[in-house]
């Protein structure tokens, strides 16, 4: 009994000591020579964190850009990184449910536990799609009960993600707050200019343009202004109404933002491999709707897509879903460039 009491006392006192430690650590951040160690689940988060953190952050991504972000493994090398991390940045909405809890538990780092300042779920405030209504169960496949988690392919959401990252970096490292804020402003300007063109962004302002775009009245609004739209929105105009088939619902946010129309998915349900019956129906539908492009991720088996393409004469576009998914995709801007260019080449009217 005495021994047990001793153990309990030891545990309690170490917990208490750790609390004192934490206070000291917060002071440590003030040391200007130290950079923050950030661990992100995906390469897109890494890219955005680097844009905002600049030289003050040292970022590692768990998933490579050409890897399925649903499935990664809590490898020892990642645990080592997480043990020392000051900040863990995740997409959330249960995208990383297969490995994030193991990494947090394995790392034994109180700083990055959910609820702590060093844990950041960037989905807070993003525009969500495909939020299931009614009861969800696993017969529906890998349905995400909190909405489709592939939201980063909407540039509007990239803005919100970068704002969340900027706010958090400022909170845990307040001495460099001004730098983070400046980098954040520069980054959203870059997105806005890429989206609407430099001229429109300069004359009208990104916030206003996005407000119109989100309410679906951008074209109407721009008619009354003495300014031309440029950027992705103009470049992707030929893609509007283009009928495509997607493999997994990873592309929903991209297709919605740029007005593409989805004829169907290769997967009958998220995460469920297609059977012959489903493919037959899909082929029929593609023929009747004249859908000529199958957009798919780099990491899925392409056999079913090739089969459908063969039957319908459609082409298979294997595109990067994340930064680093293809050699030419080295940051967020080039990711959206890559998608628009690739689709224009195959199906622009």
């Amino acid at each position, binding site marked *: 009994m005495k021994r047990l009491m001793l*153990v309990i006392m030891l*545990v*309690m*006192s*170490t*917990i*208490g*000591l*750790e*609390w*004192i*430690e934490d206070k000291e650590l917060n002071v440590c951040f003030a040391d200007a020579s130290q950079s923050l160690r950030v661990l992100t689940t995906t390469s897109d988060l890494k890219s955005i964190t680097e844009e905002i953190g600049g030289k003050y952050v040292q970022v590692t991504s768990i998933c*490579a850009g*050409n*890897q*399925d972000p*649903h*499935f990664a*493994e*809590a*490898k*020892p*090398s990642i*645990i*080592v990184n997480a*043990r*020392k991390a000051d900040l863990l940045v995740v997409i959330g909405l249960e995208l990383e*449910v*297969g*490995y994030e*809890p*193991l990494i947090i*538990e*394995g*790392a*034994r780092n*109180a700083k990055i*536990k959910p609820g702590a300042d060093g844990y950041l779920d960037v989905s807070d405030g993003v525009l969500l799609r495909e939020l299931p209504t009614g009861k969800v169960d*696993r017969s529906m*496949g*890998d349905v995400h009960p909190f909405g489709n988690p592939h939201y980063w392919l909407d540039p509007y959401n990239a803005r919100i993600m970068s704002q969340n990252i900027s706010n958090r970096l400022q909170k845990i490292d307040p001495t460099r707050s001004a730098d983070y804020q400046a980098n954040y402003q520069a980054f959203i300007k870059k997105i806005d200019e890429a989206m609407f063109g430099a001229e429109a962004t300069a004359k009208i302002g990104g916030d206003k343009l996005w407000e119109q775009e989100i309410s679906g009245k951008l074209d109407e609004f721009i008619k009354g202004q003495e300014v031309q739209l440029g950027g992705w929105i103009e470049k992707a105009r030929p893609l509007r109404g283009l009928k495509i088939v997607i493999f997994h619902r990873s592309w929903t946010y991209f297709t919605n933002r740029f007005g593409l129309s989805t004829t169907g998915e290769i997967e009958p349900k998220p*995460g*469920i*491999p297609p059977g012959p019956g489903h493919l037959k129906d899909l082929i029929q539908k593609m023929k009747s709707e004249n859908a000529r492009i199958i957009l798919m*991720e780099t*990491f*899925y*088996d392409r056999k079913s897509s090739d089969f459908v393409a063969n039957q319908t004469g459609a082409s298979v576009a294997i595109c990067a879903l994340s930064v680093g998914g293809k050699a030419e995709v080295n940051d967020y801007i080039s990711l959206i460039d890559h998608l628009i260019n690739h689709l224009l080449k195959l199906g622009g009217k």
Partner: protein
Amino acid sequence: MRYIIILLYLFLLPALVLGQQAQKQGYFNPDISVIADTFYQSDNSKDGMANILSNVSGFNHPLNAEFGPDNGFNMNELEIFISANVDAYFKGWAIPVLEPDGAEMEEAVIQTTGLPYGLQLKAGKFFSDFGRVNPQHLHAWDFSDLPLIYRLTLGVEAEGLNDNGLQVSWLAPTDYYILTGLEMLQGNNELMFNYVGEDPLPEKAGPRLFIGWVKFAPNLSNPQHALQLGISGASGIHQEILDNDADGTDDQWLSGINQFWGLDFVYKYDSLKSYGQGKWVVQGEYLNFHRNLEVEQDTLTPLSVGKNRKDTQDGFYLQATYGFLPRWRLGLRYDQVGLINQMELPSGLIESPDASNRITAMTDWSLTEFSRIRFQFSQGNYELAGRDEKVSQVFLNMVISLGAHGAHKF
């Protein structure tokens, strides 16, 4: 001052946590999942697998005779996994298991979540982190049965080194992965660390089993490759009562110390494709055990009292699985037990029987992350008392998982 802060902290925080709890009752339900593991097995042995496994030379133990699958359909277990964060300091989980012959608590654990310096404490009943396969739950195995060396030494299907006790582990703050742990356990494994404690066997207060292990992983330059190495050791009290002349009454009482050590490795190649396509996992373990038991009483040969029985035995397995299609794996395993197989009997007689081996092939199909069907075939050459027997065995195994079940460790 520091103590005042600690005291304030201890009393105030729980109050805050309780306050929050009142607001959002519904969010505090634990995660619950149910895993059912059923299989069909068939073998061509003369007297059944249980009989074979209880007679492998050097590893013969009467207990093994009680556990072996029937030819035909079997239910391995129904595992109910309940887990939640207890409070701001602990997480806990309980795993009651329903088996055909009753229910038992497979794990009931409280584990710290916020200790500093990479430390973690775990208390309750749990699987020891000895070796690689031991801490894995049945449904996480890559094959339908345990490697022979585990089956014959720690044995009896889901048991292994699973015990009441305390574990402290430490993740080193190094640039490569070093996780090391010490465990103090009560000592209840019937095959290796058995305790009777009744006359004529001496009484020993628990904990009677001590285990230590280190896992090490180098940082490989290409993150698609991952390697982890492990070394483990265990030492504990073992007592045994034998019926050497098989007349139905016990005649020999032994007590002493069993020691066990092992090396393990696992290498994984991640192809970055979905659903395990192109993924390689190569894994192997070597286990060696030594027992040194003193005869406390012997009704057949009273002269042997005070003399020792010393055994040294070992075994290894090497296995590989490969994802040849999305969701489909192919696996091969080679097992050998008794490379060292030496028994020094109390009479001074030394026996060193031959080794037994087995080769196993499996293929499994994981329809989703929640269901898996496996077909397995094995061919074993078992060295039994005075004869050897070749046995072929097939398994058709189905594992399903309902509810929120956490992912498995590396």
